[in-house]
């Protein structure tokens, strides 16, 4: 399987994640879909790293993982805080950015 398969797979996973973000309304699931997209990115990075023959892409993927972890932490903290205040856990209801 040449590298392009991996990349196309990564693109597919990315779009599935994108659809998930746009369609689902629960913040939990949106965060999960975000993870999907990040992982798709990771896959692409590692694939390219293999294509180039250089391990730098893998290091990049590791850092992405770190960042994803941090973001998950903060995002889940937000969700917990929203839940604690008994607000609806629904992104469509949280719209004070309305212009």
């Amino acid at each position, binding site marked *: 399987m040449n590298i392009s398969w991996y990349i196309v797979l990564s693109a597919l996973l990315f779009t599935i994640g994108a659809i998930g973000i*746009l369609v689902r309304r629960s913040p939990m699931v949106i965060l999960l879909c975000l993870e999907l997209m990040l992982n798709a990115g990771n896959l692409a990075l590692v694939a390219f790293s293999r294509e180039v023959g250089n391990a730098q892409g893998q290091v990049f993927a590791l850092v992405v993982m770190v960042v994803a972890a941090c973001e998950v932490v903060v995002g889940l903290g937000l969700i917990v805080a929203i839940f604690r205040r008994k607000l609806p856990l629904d*992104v469509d209801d*949280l*719209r*004070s*950015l309305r*212009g």
Partner: protein
Amino acid sequence: MSATAWGWLVLLFPLAGSILIALSFRKTSWRTAGIIGTAAIGLAFVCGILALIKLLGEDPSSRHHASSLWEYASVASLHIELGIYVDPLSVFMVLVVTGVSTLIHLYSFGYMQSDQGYHRFFSYLNFFVFSMLLLVLAGNFVLLIVGWAFVGFASYALISFWYRRTTATRAGLKAFVINVVGDIGLTLAAFLIFQQLHTFNYTEVFAKAPETFHTNSWTVTAICLLLLVGAFAKSAQLPFHTWLPDAMEGPTPVSSLIHAATMVTAGVYLIARTHVLFVLAPTAADIAAFVGLATLLVAASIALVMTDLKRAIAYSTMSQIGYMIVGVSIGAYSAGMFHLMTHAFFKALLFMAAGSIISAMANEQNIDKMSGFGKAMKFTSVTMLCGALALAAFPFTSGFFSKDEILAYASARGGMYLIFTILGYFGALLTAIYTFRLIFRVLRGDPCAEAQHLIDTGHVVHAHEPTNPKTGEVEDTDVGFPGADHHIAEQSPPMKVAMGILAFLALFAGFIQVPGVDKAVTNFLNPVFADSPLASIEPSTTASWVGLLIGGLISVAGIGIAYYLYVASPETPRRLQERFSAMHTFLYNKWYFDEAIDILIVRPALAIGRFANNVFERFVIDDAITGGTEEVVGKAGQVVRGFQNGIVRTYGLFLIAGAVGLALYFLIQQS
């Protein structure tokens, strides 16, 4: 000191006087203000004399000096400097202006004595003299325009001096607006000159003009016509003359200085100064001469029936300036300037005398109500008679020599210009008639009530309530209205001195230029006009004396006709009026010029203004342009607002849509 240094001092003194009086008006008494004002102009006159002496000490061909204080603008090929030009013509004008102004300041010292705005008056008057001198001494067209505009402002300020009188403010506005029309002409002419010759400086312009322009080419004709627009508006020639009679709303010294001796002669000076251009555009010069001739006759005809004393003298001014314009347009430069000088003397004198009489009449100006002042005010009537004789060109008065010199020149030039001679003599006849009409009606006969009061009590009559002489509205004597007292020459030494000097000059100043005997003015002004081919045309001494003889006869005849009409058989005027009532009404209404201007210019302008306000402003600008733009922007804003619904998923959708679009773009780019 050099002539130009004296020239700068001439400019400095009146300006300094004006500012000094203005700034110190609370602290100085009226006497101080009057002395400062008169002294300032007097000093300017002395400097003018010194400049004259300096010039006379030089070789005639080198009697022109330009001096510049600093360069005002220097951009690309545009160089404008604050520069004056001292040559015989400007020194001549300086002497006339400062000389007559000093005497008028002296007169005002007494005449305006009880006026609450005394300081303001002298400040404005000094400023006016400064502006006039600036105009005359300017060395380039830009400074000329500056002086021109200042003079217009000073005239406005002084006409509306009694600013709480609506008639006065309206007259001031009228004068200013018509002056602005002239300013536009003058400015456009200056622009054209710059465009063609790339300089504003007099010496350069007059040197380059003959090389650059062909005779009667449309550019130089256009320049001259635009200059004429400016000259006619300032000098009250047809059709820009309607402001001058109304300008009589100002105090009498103002009428005497500005509207007789100095400002209205600025147009004559302009044409004389730019004679090089007029020589290159003979058509324009001829047009100027014909307009002057027309004004001469029209104004004289109106003066025949005018019943307001000052307005009648104003029309006389208009008529005499017509003579001057004819003079400088057909090439009789020094004759025209000579007439300017003598006219300044006798017209200023006539206004002063009229002021004295009007004071005695408690501000009443209608001659129908005046008579018999010859018995009541001897000094005034004698000086008035001197002035009238000079105006009517009675033999051997100053007006005699100056006016007839112009007409003699016209006949020497021959051809079409004989029209000027013939009609000029006809105008002289009319002049004599209307002048002595005034003299006989006002001075002769039984004293009217006011004159009788003066004879009996030695005091001037005071009206119970001061009223506006034109409309009869009741006024008071506070600031903005004429003062409570009325001063006549007999009781005011400064007025007497001024009028006396002018009377002397009016009678005897003509002897400096008697044909065949001496030609002081011509010789002095010769270096300025030597470059004009027309200046070399000179009537022979015999022809001049023949002209003088004819002129003298006409003058005497005119006086005789006036005597017949107003003394010998006083019912004749009334019968003539009844018989020719249509013509009388036409003349009385000033040939309906005011009405014509109202219909042709004022009403359309107002209509355009109303249209602009009601239709254009409201529908096009407010509704279509502003409102339309407003609506479009508002609707666009509403549409954009719709996108900001606050739901994060929508924003995400737009994000992805944007990414898709961008990726598509790059894909297409690549292939």
